[in-house]
Structure formats: structure tokens, C-alpha cells
């Protein structure tokens, strides 16, 4: 998200916050969030794709609402305005092709309007069939779950992305030899996927509240949290959305504070650190261990300030719209152990994995016929959770290595804290403070070394850089 977009969003959020006190917040939020999906989508070299991917986002959200909504709650008269708004926006944006001026609402010139109409017709037909003939049962929701995972893999596995790009280029009559995994940069899909999967799973377990189409789609594509989270829970989000909008001066003060902090973190601190942060080029150029650590520290703080800055901006924008988005970071680098680090770094992501992977797997292992010893169970669950979080960032061996590094770290911390339980409580306060400070330093450096796998593109470069860090190169 550029500074210009953020400033436009601040103005829009402030105006919406004032103008929709009595009514109209939901349809306006839906319309603006839908337009933001197009506006924030980066330009792609495959012709038309930067229009079709946002359209698919909206289509997926609508179909997912149908799938997760019990038949008796799919009431046409309550939900047609939401569909009309979304369909109208897709068509209007498509028509900008014929206006003769370039608006910053779509990444490039939209496709022909007849192509858009055909796409919308197919989407309507699919929606109608699902609406008419399905119930949100276990089987169909599991299928939807797998489809989202499948799309995710298409986007994140470089070989698959390349293949999809070749197919799309072939259809468009573009050069297949220029295909690249970067051709499929789908704005915010990682976060959209998490929200969709959360609603599928909660429908399966019966925890999903009844929500309208507009509420569901706004939850999925809420523009402040579209590109970098946080990943809210739908019942909490819709709860805020249904409250009457009455912003107090405290709300404005808090929103302003978070926005200023977020802008400062992102555009002053993170972007400055970005000039000198570790990357694939300078990793191979640095000639001493000391400077290699400096580059790594710069990367560690850049990624924190970048991400937490965006979160602050999202929370500030949400606050102006009466939505209290969840916190994502709580001074993670000041935590004395790795478990606490992960309880305070990208909190909404870890909570998601805890709710939908770690806890169910742990429960399944505990209740299984053949019980594993506790340490093996902890190792298996920690390791697999962290590898999955790594793979969410990108399907490559480097992210697997990053996941293994953290999974093993969490396992060892689990065992260590079990062993030391009660042993250090007897120590004088001074020594406990020393241990705590040592823990903060150790945890930070453990996390920082893990960033090597995150920042660099291959295991070979990561290995060479780790040697430089250790003074072996």
C-alpha cells in the first residue's frame, strides 16, 4: 500500500465515519472495500489478469457466503442489494475502459465489457445452483476448503504458478517464454484465504453466526486489513459492524495515534532500515561477520516495523469506521522466550493456526488409540505448525527451514521450561532479572537467525550467509 492510497483511505474512513452515523455504513463499506480490491491490485503482465483476480476475489467471497449460509437464511430480499452493489461495481469498473481517461481504480485497462458480462453470468449461474441445491454440509464445505488450499498452492508453488502463467499467456496470445511465478500476484489472497477457511471450518462446527451477504463480504475484503491483516474473527467483526456508529473523541484520538504511529513505523523507520537490510545481493557482498550481523539486525527490525506499522494503520482506519480490529504485535522482540515471542508476533495468524490446526491435531493425538509420548507429541505438533506457517509465506525449502528452525526452538523451549519449572523461582529477584534479560537477548538472536531463511531466496545463499555470521567466510 502506497502512502497516497493510505492517505486516500484515511480521508474515506473519516468521511464514512461521520457520514454514516445513522445509516448506510454497510453498503458504503461494501462498495469501497470492493473498489479497494481493484485499486490495490498490482499491475500484472498477463493481459486482463489484474482485473480478473480482484473479480475472482469478489466471486469467491459471494460463493463462500452462499456455501456457509444455511438454506433458510439465504433470503433474496435481504441480500440482493449486496449483490447489486458488487455486480454494479464490477460492471462500472469495466466500463471505465470506454471512458477515455485512466482512473487509478484498476491496475490497467479493464477487459471488454462482454467478457465481464459472460464472467458475471457464469458466476451468477454457479451462485444460483449453490443457492438452490446445496446445504452447508460437511462434504461441500470440505470441498470448498480444499479448493481454497488448491488455489493457494497454485499461487505459492513457483512451478505451479509458472505453469498457470504459461496457460494464461497462451490463452491471451502472449509470449509463454516470459511466464513467471510473479505473474500471479493476487492482492491479499493469503489473508482472504485465512478468512474463508475460518468461516468454512466454523460453519462445519456450527460456530459461525448468521450473517448477511454484505456483512460476510465486508469481513472478507475489509479494505484496511486487505493487504496485510490482521485476521479478525467474523463473529467479533460483525458484532462491531452491527453496533450503531457513534465515534467519540477518544476513538478519533486513538485512531489518529495509531495512524501516525503506523505511518512513522512503516514509512520512516522500516523504509529507512530497508536501505540497509539483508537481501540476496548484499548477503553475498558483505565481507565481515560484524557487518553481516548489522544487516541482519536491520532486516529483523525492518520486518517488524513494516508489518506492525501496517497493522497500526489498519487498526487506525478500522477505528475511524467503528471496527476495533485485533492487535497483531505486542513488543515481540522484548519477550524472554520463543513461546512468548510467538504469542506476541503476528498474533492473529498464530491464533488462527492454534485454533484450526495445532489444537485439533493435539486433541487428535491425545485421543488416538496409539498414544505418543508427550515429547514426541509436542515435537510433532510444534514442528508441523511452524512448517505450515512457513509454507504460508511461500512454498520453498527456505520457508520449510524457517519453520523447522522455529518448530525445534519451540520444542526445546517447551522441554527447557518443563525442566526448569520451579527451579529458578528460588533465585533472588536480581538474578531473575538477569535471566530475563538474557532470555530476551537469546530469543531475539534466535529469531534473527531464523530471518536469514526468510530474507534470502535459497538454502545455499542462506548457508553461506550463516557462515559469514559465524565468521567462517
Amino acid at each position, binding site marked *: 500500500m502506497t502512502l497516497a492510497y493510505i492517505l486516500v483511505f484515511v480521508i474515506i474512513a473519516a468521511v464514512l465515519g461521520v457520514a454514516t452515523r445513522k445509516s448506510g455504513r454497510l453498503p458504503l463499506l461494501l462498495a469501497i472495500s470492493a473498489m479497494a480490491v481493484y485499486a490495490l491490485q498490482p499491475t500484472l503482465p498477463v493481459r486482463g489478469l489484474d482485473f480478473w483476480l480482484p473479480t475472482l476475489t469478489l466471486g469467491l467471497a459471494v460463493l463462500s457466503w452462499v456455501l456457509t449460509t444455511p438454506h433458510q437464511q439465504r433470503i433474496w430480499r435481504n441480500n440482493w442489494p449486496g449483490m447489486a452493489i458488487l455486480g454494479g461495481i464490477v460492471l462500472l469498473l469495466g466500463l471505465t475502459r470506454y471512458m477515455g481517461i485512466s482512473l487509478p481504480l484498476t491496475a490497467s485497462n479493464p477487459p471488454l465489457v462482454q467478457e465481464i458480462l459472460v464472467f458475471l453470468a457464469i458466476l451468477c449461474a454457479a451462485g444460483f445452483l449453490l443457492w438452490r441445491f446445496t446445504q452447508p454440509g460437511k462434504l461441500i464445505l470440505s470441498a470448498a476448503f480444499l479448493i481454497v488450499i488448491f488455489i493457494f498452492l497454485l499461487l505459492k508453488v513457483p512451478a505451479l504458478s509458472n505453469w498457470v502463467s504459461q496457460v494464461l499467456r497462451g490463452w491471451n496470445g502472449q509470449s509463454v517464454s516470459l511466464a513467471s511465478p510473479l505473474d500471479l500476484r493476487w492482492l491479499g489472497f493469503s489473508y482472504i484465504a485465512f478468512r474463508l477457511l475460518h468461516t468454512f471450518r466454523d460453519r462445519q462446527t456450527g460456530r459461525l453466526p448468521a450473517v448477511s451477504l454484505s456483512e460476510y463480504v465486508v469481513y472478507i475484503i475489509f479494505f484496511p486489513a486487505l493487504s496485510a491483516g490482521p485476521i479478525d474473527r467474523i463473529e467479533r467483526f460483525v458484532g462491531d459492524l452491527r453496533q450503531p456508529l457513534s465515534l467519540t473523541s477518544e476513538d478519533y484520538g486513538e485512531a489518529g495515534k495509531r495512524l501516525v504511529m503506523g505511518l512513522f513505523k512503516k514509512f520512516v523507520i522500516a523504509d529507512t532500515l530497508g536501505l*540497509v537490510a539483508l537481501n540476496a*545481493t548484499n548477503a553475498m557482498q*558483505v565481507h565481515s561477520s560484524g557487518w553481516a550481523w*548489522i*544487516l541482519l539486525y536491520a532486516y529483523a527490525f525492518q520486518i517488524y516495523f513494516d508489518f506492525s506499522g501496517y497493522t497500526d494503520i489498519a487498526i487506525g482506519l478500522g477505528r475511524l469506521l467503528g471496527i476495533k480490529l485485533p492487535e497483531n504485535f505486542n513488543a515481540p522482540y522484548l519477550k524472554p522466550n520463543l513461546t512468548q515471542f510467538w504469542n506476541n508476533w503476528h498474533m492473529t495468524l498464530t491464533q488462527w493456526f492454534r485454533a484450526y490446526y495445532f489444537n485439533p491435531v493435539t486433541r487428535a493425538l491425545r485421543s488416538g488409540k496409539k498414544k505418543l509420548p508427550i515429547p514426541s507429541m509436542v515435537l510433532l505438533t510444534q514442528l508441523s505448525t511452524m512448517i505450515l506457517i512457513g509454507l504460508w509465506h511461500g512454498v520453498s525449502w527456505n520457508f520449510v527451514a524457517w519453520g523447522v528452525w522455529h518448530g525445534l526452538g519451540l520444542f526445546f523451549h517447551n522441554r527447557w521450561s518443563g525442566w526448569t519449572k520451579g527451579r529458578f523461582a528460588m533465585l533472588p529477584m536480581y538474578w531473575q532479572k538477569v535471566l530475563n534479560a538474557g532470555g530476551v537477548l537469546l530469543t531475539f538472536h534466535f529469531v534473527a537467525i531464523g530471518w536469514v531463511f526468510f530474507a534470502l531466496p535459497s538454502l545455499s545463499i542462506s548457508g553461506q550467509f550463516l557462515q559469514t555470521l559465524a565468521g567462517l567466510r
Partner: protein
Amino acid sequence: MSGSFFRNVVLKGLALFLIINLVFVAVNSDALGRISLYNRVFKGRPRFPFGEDPGQSYNLSIFNLDAMFASLAIAAGPKPSNEYRVLVIGDSSTWGILLHPTETLAGQLDGAGLSMCGKTVRVYNLGYPTISLTKDLMVLDYAMRYEPDLIIWPMTLEAFPLDSQLTSPIVANNASRVDGLISRYKLPLNPADPALMHPSFWDQTLIGQRRSIADLFRLQMYGVLWSATGIDQSYPVDYAHAQTDLVSDVTYHGMQPPALDKSKLAFSILEAGLRAAGKTPVLIVNEPILVSSGKNSTLRYNFYYPRWAYDQWRQLMDQKAASQGWDYLDLWNLVPADQFTNSAIHVTPAGEARMAGSVENTILQQSCP
């Protein structure tokens, strides 16, 4: 928090903003450039900050002369008593486009382990990649505070035309310094020339200076990568080589053969440089140029020079040097054509070594004070 609280915050913020801007105008913002992490946290650079691709070269072009000098190794501290200090000023060929710092003329001379008058010869590169004698004079004038024992001044005809003295961005953006040089040395340049960018009041405020302040900050940040990698320039594997097939046009800066108009050349600026150097000896070097043998090479030497103009300028330089007692070294055809890189004045490390060999002898012939 009430409405009056927000109103007070806004009013106080505006007042502070106004005061800070006015204070910024009152104190010379150029002085900010003297605050530098180079030579303190980071090692000093071996040549001026210059670069158009900071992400690869870990270097960037700025116009604040204080900051440029403060980033150099020469600004590390007082001159050691056992140092014979040589400064090399000049254009991009002195700075060393496509050359590592040790491969430049200054780098090769510095690495030669020379001794003069019982002192170790240390050679500093003060070249900057634009061609203008006024720019060279500005650098030389500033550099005199570093107490040089000898100044080497490589130059070429392209630095002489009066019509292009002020168009170099570093000259244009240092209008007050250039004004000072014009009045001090009675230079044949117009202080009201539109090329010189005299900042307005608003340009001098914090807001007006935001870009240059950000650049100063970025220069400090790139000190990390400079220190970590030793890289201050990007070295493309492949680049366009200097033209050897040339156009048939023989005009030179609007001048037609047969006679080169001496009044349109900046000899007075060269003489001002010699005056600025005071008692410090100056070795003037006519730097090597590419002598092409391609198309139209009977009319032109290279992209820059028609033969007639360059030959006449060399004669003028010879005459001036003889009549005014300049220490002058004409190396125009010292480097063979295959030793030029991406320009008719940029040479390979081997070409620089040839040049260094010739200059080295002249350094060693200097008399001791």
C-alpha cells in the same frame, strides 16, 4: 479528550511547524552536511558520493559540498605530519566510472608506495563525474582547507566551453558558492544565469529542503553498506562501449572550423584555479582521449571532439603552459583505443596504470619546500 483539546493540538502543531521552518531558514541548512557518520562510525569514502542506482551502488548523488567532503577519508582528521598530500581533481575519468577505487589514477598512485621529501605520499581522489572547469574550481577552492602539497588536475577540452560551465547539476545547485567564485576570481560567468538555481525563501525552509535532507540521511544510511561491502559503484557486466563510428558533423559548441574561438573557452577559470591553489603546486594533465579509427575518424577523434577543434585547443594549452610556466603534462594519446570503456575519456585499469606511470614521474620531480 474534547474538541478544544484537538483544536489546541492542531494550533500548537502548526505554530511549532512554522517556528521550526523559520529557524531552519535562519540557520544555514547547508551546515547540516558537516554532521556525518563517515570517518566516525563508517570508514571514509575514497571518492565523492555519486550514483544513480543507490540500491546497487550503495551511493547516491547529492549537491551539498559539505556533506560530500565530510563523507571522504580525507576529512578523517588533521593532516598527519609525515604525509605528503596529493589531491586529484577532475571529471568522471578521475572519479573512476567502471573502476574500483584502487584502480583509479588516485588509487593507483596512492597504492604505489611513493615517498616525497621524506614523507609518505597519500593521494586522494576528488574527481566528480561532470565535465566543467567551474565545478573543478569549486572543488579545488573547498579542498584547499585540507592542506595539499600537490594538486593534480586532469582535464579535457570538453570542460572548457563557457556555454556549459553552469549546466552541471552540482554547479547549478551550488549557486551561492558559484556566486562567490565569480566575484572573487572575476570569472566570465553571469551570476544571473538561469542555469544557476538560487533558492527562494520557500526553498530554504524545512519543507523546501526535505529532498536534500532526505538525501543527506540516505547518504549516512548507505555508509552501512559501503562499510559492509566496500562497494560504491555498480559494475555492469555488459555496457555500451564508446563510439568509434562517428558523425560527420565538425561543429564544436557552435564553433566552425578553421579557428577555435578562444574567447568562448574558460582559460580564465583554469587560471582562477591556479590562483586558488596559491603556493601549492598544480600539475595540469591533458587526460587521454579515445582516438577512433572508425567511420569519419578523419574528421573527428571521438564522440566529443572534431579533430580541428581538439588540435587547436592542444596548441593553445601548450602555448599557455609555456608562456605562464604551468606544470603541464599532455597525455592525450597515451592510452590505446582498446583500453577505453564506455566513453571516450573513461579508461580501463590498464589505461589508468599507464597514466599513473607518467604522472608518478612528474610527482617525484617536484621540489621539496
